[in-house]
């Protein structure tokens, strides 16, 4: 007999893990330290996302990873329903939100709005999903990686 929470944990364990590429690997390495960092050009200073080898503005190949405040606003969201991969279907309908970062509004990170870092993907009442709502990043450990999630700022 597995309990409901064990079943939920099992389902959570099967969520897809990020498969970092060479450009994106530092993002996940910083995430493992609990830091939300975005690639920036070391020459002209402009932020860019997704990460890539050179700066589209000044074409410099020198980059650095700048720490973000972790604050943002919901730019948009969807609520996927099945058919879905089993681990996701088990928590559906859940939310996926797109967060525009307070430090760089043109950088929008996909994520999930949850009640706490390790809560299920469907833990937030859908009535609380609102474009423009203020959120901040938290990290959850899964499959040896740290994945950013988002919680509502206290209003």
């Amino acid at each position, binding site marked *: 007999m597995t309990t409901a929470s064990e079943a939920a944990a099992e389902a959570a364990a099967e969520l*897809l893990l*990020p498969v970092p590429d060479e450009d994106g690997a530092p993002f996940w390495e910083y995430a493992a330290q609990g830091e939300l960092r975005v690639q920036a050009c070391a020459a002209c200073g402009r932020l860019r996302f997704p990460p890539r080898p050179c700066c589209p503005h000044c074409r410099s190949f020198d980059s650095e990873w700048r720490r973000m405040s972790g604050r943002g606003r919901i730019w*948009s969201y*969807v609520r996927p329903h099945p058919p*879905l991969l089993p681990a996701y279907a088990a928590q559906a*309908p859940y939310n996926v939100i797109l967060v525009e970062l307070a430090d760089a509004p043109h*950088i929008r990170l*996909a994520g999930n709005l949850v009640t706490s870092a390790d809560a299920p*993907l469907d833990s937030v009442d859908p009535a609380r999903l609102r474009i423009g709502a203020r959120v901040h990043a938290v990290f959850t450990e899964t499959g040896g990686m740290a*994945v950013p999630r988002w919680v509502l700022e206290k209003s």
Partner: protein
Amino acid sequence: MAATLKDATAIVGIGQTDFAKRLPQSEKELACRAILAALADAGIDPGEVDAFASYTMEETDEVEVAKAIGAGDVTFFSKIGYGGGGSCATVGHLASAVATGQATVGVAWRSRKRGSGPRPWKNTAVQLPTPGQWTRPFGLLRPADEIGMLARRYMHEYGATRDHLFNVAMACRNRANANPAAMMYERPLTREMYMTSRMISDPLCLFDNCLETDGALACVIVSAERARDCRQKPVYVHSVAQGLPAQHHGMVNYWNDDPLSGPAWTAARHLWKQADFGPQDVDVAQIYDAFTPLIPLSLEGYGFCGRGEGAAFTEGGALEMGGRLPINTGGGGLSEAYVHGFNLINEGVKQLRGVSTAQVPDAATCLVTAGEGVPTSAILLRS
């Protein structure tokens, strides 16, 4: 600067197989059947084909197809990337090849068994591609989820509603109801059905999504001069364009300054610049409709209305027969068949031949577009 593609080539043959959820034939056989049907329609012997164009996602390649249909020596072949964004570019590439003397008889095709295959998001073992690191772990798994995100923002910014999306679904379904070849022939849709249908990715419901289809289509392109001697009335390729905007990211176009102005805008600028007429002169349009929100976004991108006005444009029967801009007159991807948009090309040809099952009286100009949300393409056809 004498070189121009304008009306230099024409589509002289079209062919298609049955459209169904499940067909017994292989994709290769379906491709060959559609291509041979298109050549027969044109009255051109398969041995004369010397150019091929298809999509990078097309699984039957030109080597196999050329052998099977008995093509002669082939001197031009081309594959266009980005899924449904490639449809119109297949015609564009062949038009360029024929107009510049690289080939004389070009065949474009798309064959697909999407209705039969397993869906990747039902399969636990599937390996998802690397760019997915920014979206997939969070459960943004399917195209409907990715486009649903843009649709919600569009609704928020411009007051678009589910009723506007219903207008799109309804227009396509009404045309399919008149088209015996359509998967949704004689299967009417009501507002009640739409509003109570299950959600796929809220705000998108079942009827906001294209069909899953097995089937193939093809068309034949020759020079305008040669076209005059073919069996069918020529449909001229008036203008062609591809569009990959600066800082675009396929499907999840979330990271540029303006995610709601997609590749349609880029393709449109070039398309109209090369044309003798503008959006106000288009008699009928075949607009890529994998998802209903792509229609208002495309109406804006191709200049039929202003930014943010695409949803309102769908009101008052504008997309229906006799409306301001009848669209997807075979039923489109939403209600005829979803074959990565190739049916929209052939339907455009039918309109300009005057033989559509939802014929726009005296239609002489038609816009056909490819997938919006990915690097795209478009053609203007005229009779």
